[in-house]
């Protein structure tokens, strides 16, 4: 801790101190080199999306395109190909999921945290057990059910398994638990109804947790490939993530266009992250399990 170099250039440093500083600077350089490796795929992606197809895999690679084809690539992706629709589909699905998750989780979490009712232990136990069950386990029966009711390839089918987030119920319940009972009792004495207590006291106090969960939910479902792959069968309902799979299987040798599309799909989450860095880091690392 004491080895942070001071700006004052002290003459004739002891050798050990000098060596320590060299290591420190070498470490800093290594960190930034690592950082460059981390962002290189993004830089390469953007660079390639601006190149004509024959230049993408050119033998002598350069980050700056020799022929600028960005305009053609992006107009093609945005206006001739249905990528805007794919983005829109992703957005509708993520937003729909989030709204229903919040509407179901917040009241349930409040009841579990602050109200006494028979069955609450069983319900909470079910919530805890549910946290460990990923969609991959329940996908078959849910898929069969959706096929039976004829909802395959609809927005409802794309959203349905995620309408309830047991993790959100758990998270909000823990958060509401810490809300002082005395304030709730004071509000009851002041004549608040229970609904008003939730809307005007509990929800505002939980804004940080709700915001973090919203980021978590949105990012997770934006990046999800597994479920759309199962229930989407037409171009109309294709999500942004799923469209990448299509690109890979039917690689039409339009590399510049492919990477322009990939850029368009990656951009929303990356840009949002850059604008709300803290919130994203908190939201995404919240569960501990990535993806």
């Amino acid at each position, binding site marked *: *801790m004491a080895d942070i170099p001071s700006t004052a250039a002290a003459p004739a440093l002891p050798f050990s101190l000098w060596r320590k500083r060299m290591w420190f600077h070498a470490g*800093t350089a290594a*960190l*930034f080199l*690592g950082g460059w490796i*981390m*962002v290189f795929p*993004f830089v*390469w992606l953007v660079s*390639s999306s601006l190149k004509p197809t024959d230049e*993408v*895999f*050119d033998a002598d*690679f350069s980050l700056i395109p020799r022929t600028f084809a960005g305009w053609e690539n992006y107009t093609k992706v945005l206006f001739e190909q249905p990528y805007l629709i794919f983005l829109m589909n992703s957005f509708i699905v993520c937003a729909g999921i989030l709204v229903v998750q919040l509407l*179901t989780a917040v009241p*349930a979490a409040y*009841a579990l945290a602050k*109200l*006494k009712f028979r069955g609450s232990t069983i*319900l909470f136990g079910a919530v805890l057990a549910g946290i*460990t*069950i*990923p969609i*991959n*386990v*329940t996908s*078959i*029966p*849910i*898929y*069969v*059910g959706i*096929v039976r009711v004829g909802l395959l390839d609809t927005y409802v089918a794309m959203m349905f398994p995620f*309408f309830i987030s047991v993790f959100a119920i758990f998270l909000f319940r823990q958060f509401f638990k810490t809300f002082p009972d005395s304030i709730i009792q004071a509000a009851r004495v002041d004549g608040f109804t229970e609904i008003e207590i939730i809307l005007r006291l509990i929800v505002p106090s939980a804004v940080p947790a709700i915001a973090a969960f919203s980021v978590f939910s949105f990012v997770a479902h*934006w*990046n999800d*490939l*597994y479920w759309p792959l*199962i229930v989407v069968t037409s171009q109309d309902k294709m999500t*942004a*993530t*799923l469209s990448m799979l299509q*690109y890979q299987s039917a690689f039409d040798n339009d590399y510049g266009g*492919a*990477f322009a599309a*990939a850029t368009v*799909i*990656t951009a929303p*989450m*990356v840009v*949002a*992250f850059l604008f709300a*860095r803290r919130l994203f880091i908190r939201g*995404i*690392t919240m*569960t*501990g*399990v*990535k*993806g």
Partner: protein
Amino acid sequence: MATTAAARAQARLAYGLVAPATCLLLLIYVLPIAVVIAMSFTDYTLVSDYYEFVGFENYSKMLEEEAFRNALWNTFIYAAFLMPLAFGLGLVIAIAIQERQQFRSILEVLYFLPVTATLTAMALVWAALMDSRQGVLNGTLELVGIPGLNWLGSEGLVLFSLAIISLWALVGFNMVLFLAGLTAIPKSLYDAAAVDGADGAVDKFLRVTWPMLGPTAMFVAVTNSITAFKIFDTVAVLTQGGPNRASEVYLYLAYLEGFEYFNMGYSAALSLVFLVIIFAFALLQALVIDRKVHY
């Protein structure tokens, strides 16, 4: 009497509040799990409505079938390569950043960026970087005199290549968790250690950092194993299990059996085994979290 009336009113309200969540919980978790269990004892396929109970046949099939062993083994090799690296690099980077607070923001952004990015899209980039003939990766290797590798196309290498992509996407995630753990270590412990004589990097790490980070480390290790076990996206986009099933991982096999071959009964059995493994990890995690706090 007034209190019981109030209690009854509170309970009524509570049932109203939990009703939507409970209905969905039944529809999305309880019922499907029951159906999966039932289905795993049948030869149900989506193609025909006729099915029979086959007892434990699906499970015994697993033990016999080469594909199951192959998928389990592939997942294991992939995880065995990914997890130590993601853990070690995440820890080293976090410690290095913690000692360089002036660069913390920018480094955090650089390392966390891959975590937010859509892996499906970035997988295309990685495929291009790892291209055996024209990729940047082989170009760099050849520059220093190492012959290029067929990253995603060779049976022996494909799992490691997939692990490298996952490593890229996971390191920043672990780093953030470790950074949070490091920040929670009181600064005065390092001062006390320095006075006691533990001021070298090795002693500081072994005497203070590592023991104080223990709970975080266990959390990272356990949750990483779950993450590793759930690998699906990159396989689906890049290799589809190939070449020659060398990258057919567990979830991809379950997906193929269920949604490509429509062997729903068998796939249900595969899913349940998957759930048992995840449950074991979760149990481990719960036990660890319990003895987390020192003070």
